[in-house]
């Protein structure tokens, strides 16, 4: 079992506020990440924009409602819609979150954390395999930001993520901001997290901003990437090597040029990391 990483460069999220510019010219970025659920409709403007963008750059589908950790049955309707969208868009890859957000047929539309238990590992692994079989491809799972640690947990989050990825034979979408946010909220060392995950399964990175609420950090994606997250990005690249990286900016979305500027900064940081690795290897 192995995971093959594809490096497609530096991307940005496809957001409605940028639709006019996306329709007027090719996207000024290597690739675009689209929230899967926003494009599962039969038609309309969003899907037309996505299809136009896809003709010009690679697209990655990133879901928020797979609810892979839920004890509810997997939604066949959802998987069918995702498979249909994937057939239409031919994404570079498909990702979602190592989280859950539905219970008893009710959807919270949130990314709730799981207890880090062997039972949860087995539960998620079985479901990831079914999803991968249904989609005919490996998926990537993202580490969510979190504000609670369950009393039932038996292992740290990075071990939980690693066990799921290895046993399900899927990739990891490592959200560097989420590692930083959760480290602060739970009091662990983010370097332990980076050292504890299988580098060869990290297929994509997320960078984002967050809000400092005093006693905790809130994962808000509403601002530029802060210095502490850039530092952790450098630490990540030093361990996993160059990885396709996306800057998430979902609230108070800036003009497209500003978002691209933030993504280009990630490209510069990665170039520095490549030079550093070459120097160390020489």
């Amino acid at each position, binding site marked *: 079992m192995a995971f093959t990483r594809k490096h497609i460069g530096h991307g940005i999220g496809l957001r409605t506020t940028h639709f006019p510019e996306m329709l007027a010219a090719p996207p000024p970025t290597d690739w675009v990440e689209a929230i899967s659920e926003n494009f599962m409709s039969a038609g*309309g403007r969003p899907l037309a924009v996505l299809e136009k963008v896809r003709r010009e750059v690679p697209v990655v589908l990133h879901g928020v409602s797979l609810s892979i950790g839920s004890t509810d049955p997997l*939604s066949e309707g959802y998987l069918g819609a995702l498979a249909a969208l994937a057939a239409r868009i031919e994404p570079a890859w498909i990702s979602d979150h190592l989280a859950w957000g539905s219970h008893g047929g009710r959807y919270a539309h*949130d990314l709730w954390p799981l207890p880090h238990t062997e039972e949860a590992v087995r539960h998620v692994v079985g479901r990831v395999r079914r999803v991968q079989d249904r989609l005919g491809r490996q998926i990537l799972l993202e580490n969510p930001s979190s504000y609670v640690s369950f009393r039932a947990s038996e292992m740290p989050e990075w071990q939980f993520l690693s066990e799921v990825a290895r046993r399900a034979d899927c990739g990891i979408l490592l959200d560097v901001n989420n590692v930083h946010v959760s480290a602060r909220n739970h009091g662990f060392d983010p370097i332990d997290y980076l050292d504890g995950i299988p580098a060869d399964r990290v297929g994509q990175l997320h960078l984002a901003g967050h809000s400092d609420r005093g006693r905790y950090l809130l994962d808000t994606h509403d601002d530029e990437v802060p210095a502490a997250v850039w530092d952790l990005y450098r630490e990540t690249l030093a361990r996993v090597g160059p990885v396709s990286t996306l800057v998430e900016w979902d609230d108070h979305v800036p003009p497209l040029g500003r978002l691209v500027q933030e993504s280009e900064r990630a490209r510069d940081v990665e170039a520095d990391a490549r030079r550093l690795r070459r120097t160390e290897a020489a």
Partner: protein
Amino acid sequence: MTLAETQALFHALATGGAVSAGDAGRLVVSTPGLEAEERVGIYAGMYAARLVDALAADFPKLRGLLGETSFAGLGEAYARAHPSDHPDIGRFGRHLAGFLRLLPAPDRPDLADLAALEWARSEVFFEAHVEPAGREGLALEPAGFLAARLRFVPALRLVRVHHGAAPLWRALEAGEPPPPPAAAPGAVAVWRNGFDVLHAALEPDEAAALESALAGEPLERVCAPFGGRADGAEAAFAALSSWVDDGWIAGVEPGPRSAA
């Protein structure tokens, strides 16, 4: 605690509003800086906020009319009555008009109609594109005209209202003071032209004709509501022509051939 038990309790705490210290403490770890109850409360706050935000995206005029605080209160009450049951958060608001109809605000009994109009506009925005048929694509043999049935594009809705929803929407769009609610049973057609969503109030006979046509009735019955007019034939022709010109009609199915 098993995974299923953990999720049942966490779901109840995060969606139920009030978080009990005892239940939260059984489930998650407290730290000196942040108690278990507060930690679960972060999720409870985000749950409500996210659903209200989703409604605000689909019902911008209703939100503008009510104001942020009242709209949030409405959204939270609606979420308690109709928790989301679909993976797409964009479907969450589909029961809001019905919810408002059951619990009308005494001073604004027209909110349900405004919500119904806004929801139809949202649905039409995301409908599949089907190329409308032009006049040239609708040539019918005169002998088969009355038995023919129209096929409509998916991006079309007929909304039945009890108050003047279209004038209220227009005032809110223009930033003008909303007109007082006025009982005015009627119908509004909602459709899409390119990426633009449009709507228009219909006369009662045209609304009845469109309702009949959408139900798949033959043109003989579709045209019947115009029979009460002195210029019934001309009115029916004008209505059908406008449906074609506005891109509502995808095609026409000929009626069964009569035996020779």
